[in-house]
């Protein structure tokens, strides 16, 4: 149960969907399917752009307000990076199935945990982006996301990337940030008590994870780093995942 | 309340005094609702159902509002409404059984019943003759004492005959059970015909519907645990029971037809003897 285990992903795992991805990171495993552009229902039809429909399904139990909230956050941020204007009146349907969440051997949880909203969001977001890439849905840019918690430890504020459920419980504030591949801030959701300064720190940390400049990557990997504030290099991860997929697709070249 | 089966082993009589192969009293009428295209009322013992059929008719511009199920297995339809849709709705009245349990419209058991009846009749009705249209079958359960699905199928068949909707043959149904319990692989267990509520609760059983006088099974529903060895006997008794039921409901139709001929409301037909070559 190492918290910042390297993310793993596989693309096009579902044979019948237009695009799909399976992504595991920090104890979460999520499978996503993307279908689209397909015919939108009359009530979802928009004359000038595609409607992006996001469905989040919990592993156990029925979806509730927590899932609806995640859906609405994801829907609005994904709509920003998908070229929705390319497909007026159409529907792009993203279904995110949560397969497993990090277990906690020390608590017997109820089936649904409200506090998990934040820690799962980056995983959901990342899976959705991968599935969209797998479905070759035209996008303005790719995007990466991260979750950072601020905990006070010995009167000092400390940032934890990809915090565990226990850490979130202990945290003063939790933040989810997503950046596009153009380094634009795409999504920022915060919860808890925090100062502007703290948020700035969080921003910098998350940006480092999400927007690692590629030129630097060789050097950084060499540095042994046990600082908890460092997460995986998400952008590089995305690129290498796609490289594998494209290589397989174009094996005939 | 466990079923007292001791009487059976002694006298070979069931709780209601029937022998193993006896049907309960079946009473049926057709043409019970003047306003409908077809209608029927049917009693199998104390299970009482009525049925109203409307159509085939084409729904107006508001399409798709019908709360029924389409004929799933009705023989190779192109799906683009080449065949008539058979929409079935089943309402179980609150007073139909002792426990007065409310069954909602979206009760999955009711939805399953509807789907089964639709699909069973859809396979016999000549739905291909009525493109774009809907045959809507409404069934109401007034009293419940076992063999519900069988009674519903029989009532629906009768009402469809009354509505003059062409069909390959009657779809007749009844239940069969076994005196064995599921655990005991009891070779000497007797099959039983037409289970009442009490027997249905305690003994393994199944519902069979067959097409006409054939051994072809349209519906086979078994919802209880039973040794596979008991199946053949129960199925044989059930199929045989379906033939008896077919005979009974056919007689209901013939009686009605004869009466209408006598009253002169329909023209007489020609007999075979009149049909010699010209």
């Amino acid at each position, binding site marked *: 149960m190492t918290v910042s285990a390297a993310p793993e992903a596989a693309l096009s795992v579902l044979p*019948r969907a237009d695009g799909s991805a399976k992504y595991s990171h920090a104890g979460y495993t999520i499978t996503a399917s993307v279908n689209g552009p397909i015919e939108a229902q009359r009530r979802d039809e928009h004359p000038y752009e595609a409607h992006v429909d996001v469905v989040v399904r919990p592993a156990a139990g029925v979806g509730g307000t927590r899932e609806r909230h995640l859906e609405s956050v994801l829907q609005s941020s994904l709509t920003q990076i998908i070229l929705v204007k390319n497909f007026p009146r159409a529907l792009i349907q993203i279904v995110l199935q949560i*397969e*497993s969440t990090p277990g906690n051997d020390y608590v*017997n949880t109820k089936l649904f945990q409200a506090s998990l909203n934040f820690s799962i969001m980056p995983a959901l977001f990342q899976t959705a982006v991968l599935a969209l890439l797998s479905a070759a849905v035209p996008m303005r840019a790719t995007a990466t996301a991260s979750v950072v918690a601020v905990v006070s430890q010995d009167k000092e504020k400390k940032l934890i990337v990809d915090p565990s459920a226990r850490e979130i419980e202990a945290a003063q504030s939790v933040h989810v940030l997503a950046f596009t591949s153009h380094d634009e801030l795409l999504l920022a959701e915060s919860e808890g008590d925090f100062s502007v300064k703290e948020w700035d720190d969080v921003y910098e940390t998350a940006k480092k994870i999400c927007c690692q400049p590629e030129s630097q990557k060789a050097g950084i990997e060499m540095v042994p780093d046990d600082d908890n504030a460092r997460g995986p290099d998400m952008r590089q991860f995305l690129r290498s995942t796609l490289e594998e997929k494209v290589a397989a697709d174009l094996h005939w070249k | 309340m466990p079923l007292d089966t001791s009487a059976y082993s002694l006298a070979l009589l069931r709780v209601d005094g029937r022998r193993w192969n006896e049907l309960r009293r079946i009473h049926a009428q057709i043409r019970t609702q003047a306003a409908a295209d077809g209608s029927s009322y049917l009693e199998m013992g104390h299970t009482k159902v009525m049925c109203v059929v409307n159509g085939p008719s084409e729904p107006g511009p508001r399409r798709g509002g019908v709360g029924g199920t389409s004929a799933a*297995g009705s023989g190779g339809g*192109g799906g683009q409404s080449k065949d008539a849709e058979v929409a079935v709705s089943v309402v179980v009245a609150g007073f139909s059984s002792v426990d007065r349990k409310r069954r909602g419209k979206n009760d999955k058991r009711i939805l399953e019943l509807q789907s089964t009846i639709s699909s069973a009749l859809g396979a016999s009705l000549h739905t291909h003759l009525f493109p774009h249209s809907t045959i809507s079958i409404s069934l109401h359960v007034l009293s419940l004492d076992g063999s519900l699905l069988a009674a519903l199928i029989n009532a629906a068949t009768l009402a469809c005959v009354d509505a003059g909707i062409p069909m390959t043959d009657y779809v007749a149904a009844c239940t069969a059970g076994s005196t064995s319990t599921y655990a005991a692989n009891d070779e000497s267990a007797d099959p039983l015909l037409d289970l009442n509520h009490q027997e249905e609760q305690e003994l393994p059983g199944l519902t069979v519907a067959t097409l006409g006088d054939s051994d*072809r099974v349209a519906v086979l*529903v078994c919802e209880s645990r039973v040794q596979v060895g008991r199946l053949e006997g129960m199925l044989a008794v059930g199929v045989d029971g379906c033939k008896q039921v077919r005979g009974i409901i056919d007689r209901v139709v013939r009686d009605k037809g004869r009466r209408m001929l006598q009253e002169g409301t329909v023209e007489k037909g020609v007999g075979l003897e009149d049909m010699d070559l010209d």
Partner: protein
Amino acid sequence: MPREAEPSLNERQFVLQALQENLRLDSREADRYRPLEVTFGDEYGVAKVSLGKTRVLAKASAEVTVPYADRPLDGVFQIATELSPMASPSFEVNRPTETEVLLSRLLEKTVRRSGALDTESLCLVAGQKCWSVRVDVHVLSHDGNVIDASCFAVVAALRHFRKPDTSIEGGILTVYTPAEREPVPLGWLHSPFCVTWSYFGEEGEMALLDATRAEEQVRVGSCTISLNRHGEICQIAKLGGTPVEAVILLQCTAIALTKVKEFSAYLDKKLAEDIKRRDAGGRSAELTAENDR
């Protein structure tokens, strides 16, 4: 919700024509299943089943609740099946289709009503506290025969599942966390499996096992037979469709029994493998890792 795509006339005719020549599109024999595979997750109670291109995930979970008033000595057990647009865009969330209702009913009858799970063993304090066991079935990809795959996944997930251990001392119920006490398996009585036959032809004279979606779309009827390896029928459902000779149905049941025995043996083997895997590097290693922290 877009309408489900219909196969073209050419496909319809071809599939039937091929069946008449005893051929299937994937060159399988009539009574042969596609490769069936079950994998278990790291968590207890998660089973993923793949049957050709059909994929089903089942997850079992448990929590302590109050038993139903009319059944004070029984635990609560439910199987939830909701088909999401992931399986096909024609499924909509919160609007059950006929497929979903029938699937849900079949699993209910096969697993729950047949008494596969000993619900009495879920009772903790009579009338006050009991376990509520729930299995969520998620169809990830729908390429036909979702019923058999789902049923297998549900049984596999439940047999793999471990619920937290409990004790009652002086009327006080303690539920132990996995760290305190090793979780315990459910009280399991028998393993039922579904075998679905699809019928083709004017009189339903051709019967196939494990139909793909393309085959399901042109079939004239189907019959799902649920059995356990002891030869007990748990349920049979031929819900309408073209009538089929009674004799064929009996033959189908006999073949289904052999399939169920195969399933049963396969699942036993996979569960045993999983336990081995967990023993080797799983549980003990995990415990030491936790102690380090």
